């Protein structure tokens, strides 16, 4: 394998493309509905559990108002947190890498170069299918934290991204093999 083909001249760091200035695509607005449906189901189950507890355990009854109030507070916070996390998400596909931004308090940006992708998965849940959305998962050899999990992409777009990435992966593999031979 030829180790160095590039010349050893000074690189102007400011002239390099800047990942932080890329405008990111937001998840589809329907994805918020899916988050709400999922949250709603969880909350209903939680509510039923609390209701059962209140009716069957007599010693809980005096605290009924406090419990209900706390539960409402939890619901409120959950919705706020999910709303913030929904708003902060963003992704971009550049010619040579994939960028994903997320976070509730801290903003974290992960960049995966295309030539480091191991494999790609496209998932569709039940509710996602109703809204024609999909989740794209991009795996690297960098362990759990090096994976990208991009939810709420319109399914057509997700499929075309997947095909695009797969094509690039194949061509990259070919060049590596050629370099080695």
């Amino acid at each position, binding site marked *: 394998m030829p180790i160095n083909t590039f010349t050893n001249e000074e690189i102007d760091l400011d002239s*390099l493309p800047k990942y932080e200035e890329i405008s990111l695509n937001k998840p589809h607005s329907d994805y918020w509905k899916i988050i709400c449906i999922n949250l709603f189901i969880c909350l209903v189950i939680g509510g039923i559990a609390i209701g059962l507890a209140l009716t069957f355990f007599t010693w809980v009854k005096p605290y009924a108002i406090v419990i209900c109030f706390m539960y409402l507070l939890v619901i409120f916070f959950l919705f706020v947190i999910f709303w913030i996390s929904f708003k902060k998400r963003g992704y971009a596909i550049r010619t*040579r*890498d994939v960028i994903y931004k997320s976070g509730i308090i*801290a903003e974290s*940006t992960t*960049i995966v170069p295309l030539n*480091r992708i191991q494999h790609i998965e496209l998932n569709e849940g039940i509710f996602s299918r109703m809204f024609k959305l999909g989740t794209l998962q991009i795996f690297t050899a960098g362990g759990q934290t*090096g994976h990208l999990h991009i939810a709420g992409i319109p399914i057509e777009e997700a499929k075309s991204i997947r095909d695009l990435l797969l094509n690039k992966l194949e061509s990259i593999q070919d060049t590596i093999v050629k370099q080695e*031979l």
Partner: protein
Amino acid sequence: MERDFSKPQRESAVGIVVMAVHTILKVVKALFFFIIYAFVKIDGVYLSYILLALAILILLCLIYGYFWYLKFTFFLNKEKQEFVVNKGIFNRDQVIIQLDKIQQVNINQNILQKIIGVYGLKIDTAGAKGEEVSIKAIDEISAYNLKEHLLSKKETSVERVSEIDEKLIPTNETPLLRISSWTLFKVGLTSNYGQSLALMIAFFLYTIQEARHIMDVFDIDKGYVESTVMGLATLFSLAIIVVILLVALLIINLVRTFYKYFELEISQHKHSLLLSSGLIAKKSTLISQGKVQITKYSQNYFQKKLNILNMSLRQAQFGQSKKEDEMQGNILEIVGCSPLERDELLKIIFGRPLAQGKTFKPDWRFLNLPVFFKIVLPLFIFLIAAYNIPELNPYIGVSITYFVIGIFMIYLSYRRHRISVNRDFIIKTSGIWDISKEIILPGKIQAITTFQYPWHKNIDVGHLTLHTAAGQIQFKYGNYSEIKQLVNYWLYQLESKNENWM
């Protein structure tokens, strides 16, 4: 000397014995307490039945070993560059390993194998499931022969046979590095205190548990034993016990070091390094330099005075399913090398001498969280408790020492937290007592994460994580503009060429 591995072949016939003993050991391990219990509790009449059962068990294991030997075949498919293993007595299993997916090949010899005069060979792959092959009985020449075959890629298969022959016998070469017993002694005294301590505690807990078991079996009066132990404890003063424990710790450390690293040797082959060490079971590992993901070396104060340091080479780890034991195989430790030998090794691994680049320091806010959570909060809780419980008052002096030492340690960790970057290397320095340097090539980066808390936006402070196939490298509280610039630079390096990182 050249063996042909292209046709399916079996192991050495003595493999039957190795496999049988292996199985017997497994069974005995599983039934250990049952067997002891049976011998102690059951009358003489049944004893003969138990002995008979054991004899049958051994016979069954031998038969198992025989069939296993019959069904276990392996061969090398040169055209497809695959190593194929067929095995399984009841079900047919076929394991196919592509040669370029092989991480490392280990040749081991345990006591039994040493007596019989065969070797064990283990193949570690980069498969997501961590599937691996182990051949339990193979003669020495075939083992080394096969190892070379497995680790030689397309380039080497074109080479002349005579050339391969030359580098086959590792004993003829002068090793690159050899660690003497005296150096090992120094290493044993100065490193791995934490691990040995954990081992000692685990051993104590295990003994106590087992002692209970045995007492249950033999109906020994527990109260009596406990009172004797307590009596012994009061006999010695606390200081003496502490000294004894410290000496025990050092001895355990020394024994462990000698057991693992006795006669540690490294020799260089065409595309790889051969490491061998071990007191009772000699273990040798062949790895290709290109597959090393993170190279690390560390040194503490004592080691600096003695002019030694410990190195470790980390290879890619795949999947979480691999057991702790196997994960260890991905980290190769080279203890007790001198700075000169380190530079020599680094040069071989990277192909060029290590060079420091521009160094980046963290912001002083690095201190905030550790000082708060490790010093201020515990002390605050303690002082409130001491205020309310008079018995704690004498210990307030201790809390002051804790405060001073704690602040000092956190300050040290802040001073040591550095990342140095140039065109070829990324070097991360960290540590309080053991100061370690982790070195990666930019080409080994798999993904990059940057993140920032909103309250750090104005002062331009942020964090960086580099994901590699052998773990993460983090740099915290750096200048965020500089971090972004670095990320763009690394992305440029990664994406402008399709380097093979494996």
